[in-house]
C-alpha cells in the first residue's frame, strides 16, 4: 500500500501532538498501513497542508474546517474516552485515502 501522510496539529506542535503521533503510528502499523507523520502548530495547519499534502489531519486543537481533507479530533487519545471509535475511523480514512 502507498504511504499515507498524516498531519498532527496541537497548540505548540510538541506535546500533545507527539503523544497523538505515537498513537497514530501504532494503530497504522497494526492495520498494516505505512504512514508518514508530520507535526505542526495549530497556526501552521493551512501552510503545512499545502506543503506536506496530508491525507488526513489529527488535531488536539481547533483547525480550519475548509481544508478539503478529513480532520479528526485527537483528544480521545489523551482522555481515553472514545479512543477505540477514533482508531477505527482513522484506519478507515487512511485505507480510503488516495
Amino acid at each position, binding site marked *: 500500500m502507498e504511504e499515507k501522510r498524516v498531519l498532527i496539529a496541537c497548540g505548540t506542535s510538541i*506535546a500533545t501532538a*507527539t503523544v497523538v503521533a505515537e498513537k497514530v503510528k501504532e494503530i497504522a502499523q497494526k492495520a498494516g498501513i505505512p504512514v508518514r507523520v508530520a507535526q505542526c502548530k495549530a497556526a501552521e495547519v493551512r501552510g503545512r497542508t499545502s506543503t506536506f499534502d496530508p491525507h488526513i489531519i489529527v*488535531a488536539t486543537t*481547533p483547525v480550519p474546517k475548509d481544508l478539503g481533507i478529513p480532520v479528526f479530533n485527537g*483528544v480521545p487519545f489523551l482522555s*481515553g474516552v472514545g479512543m477505540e471509535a477514533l482508531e477505527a475511523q482513522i484506519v478507515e480514512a487512511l485505507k480510503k485515502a488516495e
Partner: protein
Amino acid sequence: MDERSKGQDEWVREDLVVVPMRAESAADAISQLGARLEAGGFVKPTWVQAALEREKVFATGLPTPEVGVAIPHADVEHVSRQAIAVGVLEEPVEFGEMGNPDGSVPVRIVCALAVAQSDLLVTLLQRLVEMFQTPGVLRRIAGARTPAEVVDIFRQHLRFEEAESQDAGNRS
C-alpha cells in the same frame, strides 16, 4: 538519558497539593496553583498570566472517564524547575475542552504543569495520559483527603522505573 537524575519521581510534593480546593472558576484554580508553584520557586511570576492566556487559546480540559481533568501550563520560559501542582476541587469548575472550541468539561482535578524543557513535557504528558486512562486512578485522586494521599498516587503512576510493581498501592 538517565530519567532518575532528572528527578522524575519527584513531580508532586505535598506543599504543591491543594485538597480540598475551592475555586470559583478555571482561572481562579489556575491562579491558586500558580501561586503555590511560585512560592516553591518552581515558576516565574509571569507563569500565571501566561498559563491563563494559553488556556484561552488552547483549552486543556480533558473529558476523561469518571472525573474531569485539566492540565493548564505555560511555555518553558516561565518555568524554573519541574513540578506539578495539583488541586482537587470539592465542586467542579468548567474548563474549556481541549480541541473543541464549543465544548467545556466539568473539572475536579487540576494539574498545573511546570516543565522547563519541551522534550520533558512530552514524556510527562505520555505518563499522565496513561495514568488518567488507568481505571480508578482519577476516582482515587478525587477522593483523596490529604496532600500525602495525592502525592502517593502520583508517585506510583509517574514513576519511570518500577512502574509495573506498584500493586500495593492500587487498592482503592
